[in-house]
């Protein structure tokens, strides 16, 4: 048998000294006392039954004691007293209390546990046992003195029940009530409890602080409805009436109706303080019920929502400010666009007035020059020398050429301000109509026109017809000196884009000057060889560019020219 080693406990020297002498008699007495009932109690696992001899040394240590206290019977029997496995501080406290009560010095050991019982007094008390692992076990211990037939004490019986469940419940209760107290006494929540009619019964410090009333001013006097914005309460009553299809009075009912129906209810309302000032609150309402589930009152817990409201308002203000700033920027921009547009419109009007004036006023004197030259020729021609008549003809052709130049320049200028009216059209039909307008087929010339595949296009047909007119006119003009003119029209794909081409076998041009080809007033030929204003290809390029396309040419002197053009990706069909 090994020595039991309960931590932090010392054997009382007195018990050790007396133990051997009395053991035999005590055991016999205990056995004598033991009946069937006692056996049952002793063997119950739900009681710790510890029997000692008169000195306190443990003689019986039942299964319940083993289970609850964690010691094995063999380790404690005849070795220690219950005091050795009890909380020492409790022992000291208990000894001190008993010493005072009985006016005699009681040692803080086994004596403290059994003193009352040894005096024949009933003794039930709370005792904390200490397990071998150091953990505590709260027990309620009932102590009885065991006596022989002569009434002399031969030992003690300590029956313990597990007190931990009750302890826990007590602790929890304490904790809960502490928490409730903390909540209820918090200055940051208003806790208002009412009876079932709404009359205030409880009014915590938070409510006092927030609302400015004292408990005395409200308890048994008013309902929380008196502390709310009346308009809001009316609105809430109306909304709830609609929602539930019953008439709800715009008073306390409106505040607790949902809670009374067992519906969780948290809402925002404006509370009014005693001094009439207001603050936004978030209110949570709970119905208080009795055991039979009948409503006995309501608990309204409110928090001050001012800070959140202020934050929300600040946010709204910031958003409004941002909105206003953006609007200001937009209107500034609009204003600038308006001003710029007005400037552009004004410039455009000036330009229009200019070209109108050119169109009208520049041609009138030309008509006079041409007209009166002709009148002179008609009326006085026979009287003039041949040279005089030729000079007049030269004057006329100069005037006419200037007329043509003015017309072309006006067309060119107009292209910039004229809007494009795009639609899909049949290129072949357009080209055929153009050829017909140009007088094809010709009676006085041998011209062969080969029309290949020409895909339909998207664009302004009037302007694109001008492109074909100018390019075909050029082809006809520069093949004029050929016995047999050949003009080929077709399309191919260049860089993934449909590309139209017009090829002729005419006089061509030197590619060194190709960069000047599409400039205004640029001419590659002498006026006496080929007439022209030098504006036609500039017009063509401008129309093609305005359609998002590109135009270029390949040529060689006396070996014909080929013009290519595209219409930009958005104009493909």
């Amino acid at each position, binding site marked *: 048998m090994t020595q039991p080693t309960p931590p932090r406990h010392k054997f009382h020297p007195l018990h050790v000294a007396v133990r051997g002498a009395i053991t035999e008699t005590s055991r016999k007495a205990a056995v004598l006392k033991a009946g069937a009932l006692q056996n049952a109690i002793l063997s119950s696992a739900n009681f710790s039954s510890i029997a000692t001899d008169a000195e306190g040394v443990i003689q019986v240590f039942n299964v319940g004691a083993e289970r609850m206290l964690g010691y094995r019977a063999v380790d404690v029997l005849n070795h220690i007293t219950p005091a050795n496995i009890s909380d020492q501080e409790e022992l000291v406290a208990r000894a001190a209390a008993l010493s005072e009560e009985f006016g005699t010095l009681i040692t803080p050991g086994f004596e403290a546990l059994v003193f009352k019982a040894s005096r024949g007094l009933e003794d039930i008390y709370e005792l904390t046992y200490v397990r071998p692992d150091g953990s505590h076990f709260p027990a309620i211990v009932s102590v009885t003195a065991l006596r022989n037939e002569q009434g002399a004490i031969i030992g003690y019986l300590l029956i313990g029940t597990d007190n931990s469940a009750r302890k826990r419940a007590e602790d929890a209760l304490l904790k809960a009530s502490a928490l409730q107290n903390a909540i209820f006494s918090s200055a940051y929540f208003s806790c208002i409890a009412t009876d079932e009619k709404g009359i205030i019964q409880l009014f915590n410090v938070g409510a006092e602080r927030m609302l400015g009333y004292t408990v005395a001013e409200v308890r048994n006097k008013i309902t929380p409805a008196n502390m709310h914005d009346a308009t809001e309460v009316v609105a809430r009553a109306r909304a709830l009436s609609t929602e539930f299809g019953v008439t709800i009075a715009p008073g306390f009912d409106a505040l607790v109706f949902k809670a009374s129906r067992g519906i969780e209810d948290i809402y925002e309302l404006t509370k009014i303080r005693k001094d009439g000032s207001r603050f936004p609150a978030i209110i949570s309402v709970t119905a208080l019920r009795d055991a039979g589930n009948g409503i006995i009152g309501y608990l309204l817990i409110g928090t001050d929502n001012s800070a959140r409201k202020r934050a929300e308002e600040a946010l709204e203000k910031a958003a409004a400010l941002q909105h206003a700033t953006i609007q200001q920027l937009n209107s500034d921009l609009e204003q600038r666009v308006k001003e710029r547009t007005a400037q552009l419109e004004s410039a455009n009007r000036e330009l229009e007035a200019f070209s109108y004036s050119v*169109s*009208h006023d520049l*041609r*009138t004197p030309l008509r006079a020059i041409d007209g009166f030259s002709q*009148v002179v020729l008609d009326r006085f021609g026979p009287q003039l020398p041949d040279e005089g008549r030729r000079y007049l003809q030269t004057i006329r052709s100069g*005037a006419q050429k200037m007329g043509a130049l003015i017309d072309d320049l006006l067309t060119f200028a107009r292209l910039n301000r004229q809007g494009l009216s795009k639609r899909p059209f049949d290129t072949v039909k357009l080209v055929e109509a153009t050829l017909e307008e140009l007088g094809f087929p010709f009676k006085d010339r041998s011209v062969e026109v080969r029309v290949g595949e020409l895909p339909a296009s998207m664009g302004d047909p009037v302007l694109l017809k001008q492109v074909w007119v100018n390019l075909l006119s050029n082809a006809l003009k520069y093949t004029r000196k050929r016995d047999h003119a050949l003009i080929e029209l077709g399309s191919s794909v260049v860089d993934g884009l449909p590309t139209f081409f017009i090829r002729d076998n005419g006089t061509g041009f030197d590619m060194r000057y190709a960069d000047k080809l599409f400039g205004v007033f640029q001419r590659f030929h002498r006026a006496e060889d080929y007439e022209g204003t030098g504006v036609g290809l500039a017009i063509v390029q401008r129309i093609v560019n305005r359609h998002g396309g590109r135009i270029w040419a390949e040529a060689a002197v006396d070996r014909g020219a080929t013009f290519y053009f595209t219409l930009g990706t958005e104009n493909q069909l």
Partner: protein
Amino acid sequence: MNELNPVQLLLIEDNPQDLELALLALQQGSPNIQIHVARDGAEALDFIFCEGLYSTRLISDVPKVILLDLKLPKVDGLDVLRRLKGDPRTAMIPVVVLTSSKEQRDVVESYQLGVNSYIVKPVNFERFVEAVRNLGLYWMTLNQPAKSVV
């Protein structure tokens, strides 16, 4: 159509050279016409509505055709056209715009106001004569005008 009752034509033209050339062209084309000339828009309106200098004229004595330049002093050609076509007494008179302007907006507005023809005066004199002769032939001999409702 005879000498006692020549065809009446109103020519509204401010430019003296254009006027002379127009008269030459008209006389070359159809000699048996009586040409009234107005040198600005105001005079043209006086003639048409028998006011001012022309107050003794009878409004029922309508010209067979009016040749109208657009760019005119005092009252613009388009305003003259607007007045003419807006009045039931004169709305039926054929009006031919004879102008230097090729501007699309002039063409469109003229037709919107109810012009009967729009001719751009060519620089080339032969073509000018031909155009005037053609319009004289059409409006003064071939065209069958509506009888005035007034």
